[in-house]
């Protein structure tokens, strides 16, 4: 099997790697780039724990091949804080108590981030729809929606 060379932008840095093509994007991000905020939950594109932003849009990295990100711009939770300062959503998720076990949190925050980048003042219904691809099995969603609303107000 021939290796492939992939060049893309990861968290505002141009990166390139030579890797085997039979890898999911999820596996490459975790194993080759140490982006362990990207979680494997269901592995079938249902739960959203592996969500990353591709060109600003949320996608499930478990349903993409590594080679498909050639030339794309990716954002994982690792790239959200700037100069050691947490993103507003990371702060409001803590303040609202929107994190319990934390496994869904990176995906939740990224889906919320994508929404706020496009629509800075979403309604509760728009938040619900934007987060409908991210499942939380412990906290419930009320505090998560609240955290997003707190970030709107800031």
């Amino acid at each position, binding site marked *: *099997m021939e290796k492939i060379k992939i060049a893309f932008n990861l968290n505002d840095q141009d990166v390139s790697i030579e890797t085997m093509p*039979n890898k999911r994007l999820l596996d490459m991000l975790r194993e080759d780039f140490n982006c362990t905020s990207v979680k494997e939950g269901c592995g*079938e*594109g249902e739960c959203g724990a592996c969500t990353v932003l591709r060109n600003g*849009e949320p996608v499930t990295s478990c349903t993409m*091949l590594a080679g*498909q990100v050639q030339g794309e711009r990716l954002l994982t939770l690792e790239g959200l804080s700037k100069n050691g300062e947490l993103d507003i959503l990371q702060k409001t998720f803590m303040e609202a108590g929107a994190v319990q076990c934390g496994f869904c949190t990176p995906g939740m925050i990224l889906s919320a981030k994508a929404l706020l980048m496009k629509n800075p003042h979403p309604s509760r219904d728009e938040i619900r729809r934007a987060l*409908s*691809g991210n499942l939380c099995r412990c906290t419930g969603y009320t505090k998560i929606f609240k955290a997003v609303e707190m970030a709107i107000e800031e």
Partner: protein
Amino acid sequence: MKEFSFFSPGTLDEALTLMNQYKGKASVIAGGTDIVLELNDRSHHPDYIVDISKIKELRYVKVVDGIVRIGALSTFTDLENDPYLRDHVKSLYSACYYVGSPQIRNLGTIGGNVVNASVAGDTPTAFISLDATVVLRSAAGKREMKLTDFYGGPGKTELEKDELLTEIYFEAPTEQMATAYTKLGKRKALVIVVIGLAVLLEKDCNNICSKAQVVIGAVARYPQRLPLIEHYLVGKPVTKETFDGCRDLFSQTVYEMIPTRASVGYKKESVKGVASKTFDSILSDFSLCGVEE
């Protein structure tokens, strides 16, 4: 995941050359929302993967001379955000709006949804109600066929091993037409369709139904036109009473399609509600565009 060689052509011509070169040994990946799972659990292990997701020329929605043309690599999100489809082709718009999750809609492509021929596909049902045509290209040339002739069963289509589906097109609905799609599922997001019903209805200036294209999905092996119901509707006034009058016909039709299936008891009853909801949407569309007096 087993080993494979990976190609990512930037143009359609390059992709067709690869498909011709590795005929039968290559699998195509576009959005990947289905095939990556199969590769990962090793149920599918091609020698070559041709990633067509970078072919920009196949991503468009345009209306030219009364024909709506959709490039195969347009995503569900692309269609959901298209103002023309939202206002004029509500059936297709709704079919896309309720697919999976935002993440899946950002990845999944219309061509993939059509070619996969899943029993639970949403857009094929809508496309067949629009009497859509698919454009299939290979290194040797191009052919077209009606989507109704394209399917042979779950996962089975007329697509040859060296062909790519490049476009789906249909006649733009006129002002005298309304379309609707209703998806019955067990929850509100990430829904697998239980029944999908797509309708295109045309009425004349006397409010009489002059054309009906009614398609049911997720009941038979692929979406089916329902000629009995279409005949029932044509020639009748476009009113709630007419539509209520065919609820039992829907029930009977579904029963006859899947008499021995375990789900028949549920589906033959629930289809009545699905039909009512679909026709309510058609009626409200007609009254909104002011055709009704």
